[in-house]
């Protein structure tokens, strides 16, 4: 049961006259429902119900003068407390009006605790935002279906301009047209596994790298019989890297930065029925020919039975394609981004070689060095190849 006392209806008036009761005893009443009209010296004020429940008793009749703080109405709410956050409950039972915290209306009250973190002021970190572009340019990009976040702006402060958007649209329109070569009727087979990986890395290379290939031969006439060609080729790569470190490492086109490496970790392309697999020989620069041969045999074995771990195939700094065991003399090997260069070696041949005073027949290894001309100069590549050849031509 709740008793509602006549509140101070404002401006300190001590009493009010009941004009109309809008509810009768026994009525159901809801919170905020119009309950009665009272007339003060200034105006007729409409008083809403502070509770939901059933009207148990009206303490005054229409026309009565009621003093502020005296009981007006009893409402049976069916439970002990008023709804949280609603009007305060006058302490009718004690016969004295509680402080409702206001002279007019009803003050929402709760004991809810506010827990907040409030950071004062700014961090002065402007400038690290997203794309800068005028609304008209954003609208243009939306209309043309271009993701403005992928356009690098050429305007003031890196702003994307309308021309940038149009240029991006033109480039985007040209690219898919070229790629749309349709297959004739048939049953296409989706590339899987190593072949799929090859397709991806070769496509990336095609769209990124500016390749340039140099051809030359290494005369291995002075070699002792039974010399291990692959480990000699690896040693020659190390010699090339020492002479010209610019070919050993990585290049990132987005940030236009290169990262040259001291380590020489060489990926070796191995042909398998499932496609090209490229395991890595690590730390080539500090291994003997014998140690390299052990590594190579292990890798070859694991490659054949497909047990090469994924981590054995990544993070290499240079690539060797020893294709010549089958056929082919020279090639244009394809650089695998983000690396910078690849050396291809063709099959060893007996060539007629002019020597002082005549012609001799010497075994020679044909070499093809492809480098990414975006970050390597022709001079650097030639010096690399010269050093590699000089190393290969040594007797042991």
């Amino acid at each position, binding site marked *: 049961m709740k008793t509602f006392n006549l509140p101070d209806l404002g401006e300190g008036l001590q009493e009010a006259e009941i004009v109309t009761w809008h509810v009768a005893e026994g009525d159901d009443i809801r919170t905020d429902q119009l309950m009665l009209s009272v007339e003060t010296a200034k105006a007729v004020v409409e008083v809403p119900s502070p509770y939901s429940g059933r009207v148990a008793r009206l303490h005054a009749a229409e026309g009565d003068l009621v003093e502020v703080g005296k009981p007006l109405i009893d409402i049976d709410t069916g439970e002990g407390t008023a709804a949280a956050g609603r009007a305060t409950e006058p302490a009718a039972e004690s016969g004295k009006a509680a402080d409702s915290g206001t002279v007019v209306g009803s003050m929402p009250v*709760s004991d809810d605790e*506010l827990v907040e973190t*409030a950071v*004062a002021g*700014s961090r002065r970190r402007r*400038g*690290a935002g997203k794309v800068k572009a*005028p609304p008209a340019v954003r609208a243009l990009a939306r209309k043309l279906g271009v993701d403005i976040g992928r356009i690098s702006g050429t305007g003031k402060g890196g702003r994307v301009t309308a021309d940038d958007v149009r240029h991006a649209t033109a480039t985007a329109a040209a690219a898919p047209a070229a790629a749309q070569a349709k297959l004739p009727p048939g049953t296409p087979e989706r590339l899987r596994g190593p072949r799929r990986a090859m397709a991806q890395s070769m496509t990336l290379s095609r769209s990124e790298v500016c390749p340039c290939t140099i051809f030359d031969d290494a005369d291995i006439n002075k070699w002792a019989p039974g010399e291990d060609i692959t480990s000699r080729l690896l040693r020659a790569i190390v010699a090339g890297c020492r002479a010209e470190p610019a070919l050993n490492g990585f290049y990132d086109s987005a940030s236009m930065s290169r990262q040259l490496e001291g380590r020489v970790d060489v990926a070796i392309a191995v042909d398998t029925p499932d496609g090209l697999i490229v395991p890595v020989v690590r730390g080539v620069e500090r291994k003997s020919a014998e140690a390299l041969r052990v590594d190579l045999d292990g890798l070859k074995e694991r490659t054949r039975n497909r047990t090469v771990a994924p981590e054995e195939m990544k993070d290499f700094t240079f690539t060797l394609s020893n294709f010549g065991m089958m056929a082919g003399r020279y090639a244009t090997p394809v650089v695998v981004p983000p690396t910078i260069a690849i050396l291809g070696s063709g099959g060893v041949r007996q060539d007629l070689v002019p020597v002082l005073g005549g012609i001799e027949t010497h075994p020679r290894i044909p070499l093809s060095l492809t480098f990414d001309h975006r970050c390597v100069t022709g001079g650097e590549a030639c010096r690399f190849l010269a050093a590699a050849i000089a190393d290969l031509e040594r007797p042991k």
Partner: protein
Amino acid sequence: MAKVTLIEAITMALAHEMTRDDSVIVLGEDVGVNGGVFRATAGLQERFGPDRVMDTPLAESMIAGLSVGMAAQGMRPIAEIQFMGFIYPTIDQMINHAGRLRHRTRGRLSCPMVLRAPFGGGIHAPEHHSESTEALFAHMPGVRVVIPSSPARAYGLLLAAIRDPDPVVFLEPKRIYRLQKQEIQDDGKALPLDVCYTLREGEDVTLVTWGAMTFETLKAADQLAKDNISCEVIDVATVSPIDMETILESVEKTGRLVIVHEAARSCGIGAEIAAVVAEKGIYDLEAPIQRVTGYDTVMPLFRMEYQYLPSVRRIVDAARRTLED
């Protein structure tokens, strides 16, 4: 540490500063014997005496004028206006004297007064007791307008306002006077004026608001978070001068801005914020700025007042509009 409501935090700050500084005077209608219509000054006259907590006649222009005079002569008056609906007679004093005293005397005199008033709707008060007309004062040069939105900021910002050497109109959102409690230490530490307070950090939309509307705005941010829309919520706190740097910085991050205020839309402070973002942050905007405000009409009588006040639903809808393509 005590858990106190916003109105109790006001009383705490007033008492703290009156204890610390003898030049602080409280004056207004019923602030003394009665303790104020909302109890902001309850008990102060008993503690500090009738010379420092003065009941005045019902004459708001006089209350403001008296405060200007006292402030010019080295006191720190804090005048209370019972409701924002009664504040308009003070405008002459505030715009013609308080705001320009420093300029008029070439810096010889300043006017360290605070004009306190409860404002805003939501307590079912009679006609003309519920408006939010902070923009009237924000348009006055030389007058600072400060609006707290939590007990902690009510305490810290009121202390800063009293200590500030220039006039401050301190508007108190009465709907949240007793809505929540917060732990506050009565340590006399002021909070900085003229800066926004970032209440929540987010990535997708910036919600800027002040006063009682922070309550609905935070609820809207909660709702949007359920749909993985991350909102940054900024309480402007000092609505004149506005710390635009914080708002611009946030818009640069999110690219989207929703301004929420209880006041009528036209020429509201939201319009000023939107204008500055258009001037200085337009290259960051990914969607049109949205305003969620009261309407350009007389505030309705109390049964309709929640139709007028921005709701959580309206704020959520506006935020979603900024994310539509």
